[in-house]
């Protein structure tokens, strides 16, 4: 552990310099968070005042209780003034909140640990930069010391990165979901999980690095294990029909799940923190810490030669950074891919040539991106991996819809129209979330890597249009399973399904244009976190506007709601298109 003091020295200088260099950015961020906290407190005070006035005058604020009245026909769910309740087979009523919280926390912990484990096996040695490779690897220290250096630096960065959680303070504490103590406790629990993320990833790498045949299978095994709680729940609730309450408690809150090493302990620790059961939380936290310490001990006792793997990843990362430094910005999405996988993919696609016949000028970008899509496709033609993913997600959503519908049909004679509308909304929301992430890698951002984009003798609007034409085409193809799903869950209402399909497609273009504009404006690498926040705000802006107009745009007027959203997104997309074209023109100059 001879490099530990150097690690602290490095953190002190690196973090200190980052603050010094980006003073304005940090001041803006602090002001933004503080402003949000103040505004949220003012808004909450007003809400409380209104609620008090309403209760004094005897008027009930119905808005708060009409969220899912139709779903109460699942008969064991009760939506009351005191919260959501669930009835079991014996007719007893239980509060839903704690079960849902524990279930959600369980899924989050599984997700974090699962992803860490899977990525660790695949690329666990990827946290060294090329500078680390050049300066530290040849230095006279054991590989374990080099590992400790980086682990400490990573933990420091995780702590710093966790500060952004404070941004959630107004939401969680201001709205009364968490007490301030519970929030602080959760903040530290999050920090702990971030640290464990690194530890688990590394442990997984050390476990599998010498087993090249097993390594590619780890992520698939993790995926199956991760999906197990959902599958078990669906099996218990819909196949064995033991009741919703029993299924939920068995999967989410049973003692068995609490004893699962680390995942169960962390889940219980988080849940107890939220429920302010601090003693129990502390006990589970202590067990998790012991586990972490033992894992670290094991990691540092292993004499593993990880330098070559780290070098491979650092080289790929370096190339990406070089591109960004040269202002040929763009997301290459290769930082986590290994050299082997890139070579494998290159060999696979090399044989399929792109023909540029009848594609002069800006149309060449359309043809190039189309050709790329075809040669990288896992199936035939335009049917790529994203299509398969949407197909799978649609399948899962349809299965859930079908099961809920059959249960409702058993219980009621007439299914209310609102049921289908809510499902259409759920599908739209799920895919909007997926599209938000998908939109971060649009073809134009890759085109920005090459200088000849500026040499094409056509207007920037034309280049932008042709590049996006292919992107829209991709979206159309990828969303085909979603279109079918929308048609099915809307009770074969083609108008409604089409409306929401168009809505999703425009949202796809809108989020991509937002991201592209932000990338053009904030080219500096350090603004990554800031950019993520801004992109999230821009992507969520239409939803915020709709929320503000919720009085006028309720579910009974769903056509109006969807139509208005399309109009709004279209208008915003056109604005962003003009902004992007201007930015590109400026780049050309």
């Amino acid at each position, binding site marked *: 552990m001879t*490099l530990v*003091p*150097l690690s602290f*020295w*490095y953190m002190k*200088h*690196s*973090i200190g*310099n*980052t603050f010094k*260099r980006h003073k304005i950015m940090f001041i803006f961020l602090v002001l933004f968070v503080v402003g949000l906290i103040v505004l949220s407190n003012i808004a909450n005070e007003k809400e409380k005042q209104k609620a008090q006035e309403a209760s004094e005058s005897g008027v009930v604020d119905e808005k708060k209780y009409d969220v899912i009245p139709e779903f109460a026909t699942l008969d064991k769910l009760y939506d009351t003034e005191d919260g959501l309740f669930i009835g079991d087979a014996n007719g007893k009523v239980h509060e839903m909140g704690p079960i849902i919280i524990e279930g959600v926390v369980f899924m989050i912990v599984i997700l974090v640990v699962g992803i860490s484990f899977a990525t660790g096996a695949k690329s666990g040695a990827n946290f060294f*930069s*090329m*500078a680390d*490779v*050049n*300066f*530290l*690897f*040849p*230095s*006279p*220290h*054991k590989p374990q010391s080099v590992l400790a250096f980086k682990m400490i630096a990573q933990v420091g960065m995780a702590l710093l990165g966790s500060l952004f959680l404070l941004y959630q303070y107004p939401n969680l504490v201001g709205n009364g979901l968490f007490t301030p103590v519970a929030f602080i406790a959760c903040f530290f629990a999050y920090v702990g999980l971030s640290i464990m993320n690194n530890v688990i990833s590394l442990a997984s790498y050390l476990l599998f690095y010498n087993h090249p045949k097993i390594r590619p299978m780890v992520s698939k095994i993790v995926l199956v294990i991760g999906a197990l709680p959902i599958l078990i729940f669906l099996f218990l609730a819909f196949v064995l029909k033991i009741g919703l309450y029993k299924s939920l408690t068995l999967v989410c809150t049973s003692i068995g799940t609490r004893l699962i090493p680390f995942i169960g302990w962390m889940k219980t620790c988080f849940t107890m923190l939220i429920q302010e059961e601090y003693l129990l939380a502390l006990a589970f936290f202590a067990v998790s810490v012991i586990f972490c310490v033992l894992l670290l001990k094991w990691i540092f006792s292993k004499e593993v*030669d990880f*330098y*070559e793997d780290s*070098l491979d990843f*650092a080289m790929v990362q*370096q190339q990406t950074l070089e591109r960004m*430094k040269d202002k040929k910005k763009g997301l290459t999405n290769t930082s986590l891919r290994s050299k*082997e996988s890139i*070579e494998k993919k290159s060999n696979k696609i090399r044989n399929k040539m792109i023909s540029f016949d009848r594609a002069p000028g800006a149309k060449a970008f359309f043809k190039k991106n189309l050709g790329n899509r075809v040669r990288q496709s896992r199936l035939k033609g335009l049917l790529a991996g994203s299509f398969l993913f949407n197909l799978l997600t649609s399948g899962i959503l349809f299965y859930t819809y079908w099961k809920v519908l059959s249960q409702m049909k058993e219980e009621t004679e007439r299914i209310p129209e609102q049921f289908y509308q809510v499902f259409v909304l759920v599908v739209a929301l799920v895919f909007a979330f997926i599209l938000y992430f998908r939109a971060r890698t649009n073809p134009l951002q890759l085109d920005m890597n090459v200088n000849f984009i500026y040499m094409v003798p056509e207007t920037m609007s034309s280049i932008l249009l042709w590049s996006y034409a292919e992107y829209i085409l991709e979206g159309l193809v990828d969303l085909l399973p979603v279109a079918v799903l929308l048609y099915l869950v809307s009770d074969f209402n083609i108008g409604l399904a089409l409306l929401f399909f168009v809505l999703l497609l425009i949202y796809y273009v809108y989020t991509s244009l937002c991201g592209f504009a932000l990338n053009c404006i904030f080219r500096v*690498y350090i603004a990554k976190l800031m950019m993520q926040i801004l992109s999230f705000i821009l992507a969520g802006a239409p939803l915020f506007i709709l929320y503000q107009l919720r009085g006028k745009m309720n579910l009974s007027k769903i056509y109006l709601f969807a139509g208005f959203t399309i109009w709004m997104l279209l208008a915003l997309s056109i604005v962003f298109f003009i902004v992007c074209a201007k930015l590109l023109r400026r780049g050309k100059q």
Partner: protein
Amino acid sequence: MSEQDFKTILSVENVTKKYKNELACDDVSFALPAGSVTVLLGPNGAGKSTIMKSIIGFLRYSGNITVAGHPNKSIEAKRVLGYMPEIPSLYPNLTVEEHMEFVARAYRLENYRPFMNELLERFELQDKTNKFGDELSKGMSQKLSLCCALLPQPKLMLMDEPMIGLDPHAIKELKVLMGEMKKNGQTLLVSTHIIDSMDRLWDHAVIMQKGHILGNVTRADLEAQGRTLEDEFFALTEGISESDMYSLTEEKEA
């Protein structure tokens, strides 16, 4: 036994490195006498960088490499070794001076400041000590990378394409410095494909192609035969001598 007792400071024995199915180095063996300047020559893809990375301990390989009698991945060997990479990479949020301090701390150097200042001055970086890693041009980064590699004053210095990206003044300074290092008894292994760049400095030359060693020659041997390093290189890699090559070009032109 101290490092000075070894006449052969680096010994590479039967080193083979495979990337998947591609053989980057095949049964490579050579040795470096202490205090010599050895140039590792070869066309692109010859395996020069692979062997350099294997010596410094970055890669897994089959075979045996020892530095001053110690396995190359041991701490004892690393105390003797220094490495200047082909592509310089710096920490974006550390300044030029902080980079030097970082290396000094990593190698636990004492009283390093006079030598640090000397290096910065020689490579014209003294007025850029407060510049950050990501603010430096490629040439400046290369110079800083070189200064960082030289700071611990290693007994055996590996330099991977050290002249690339340097301005004429820095190249001149580096050559002078190499000469000084040689005088001080330090050993240099320089990988390059620009033969002229090491013209006056080299003592030994290892010529590689397609992962194999084609020749291991000394300056004395070649001079005795009246041949240049360039002659030897083309004779081994392309089967023709330099003079043949010129006459071929003249024939083509005619």
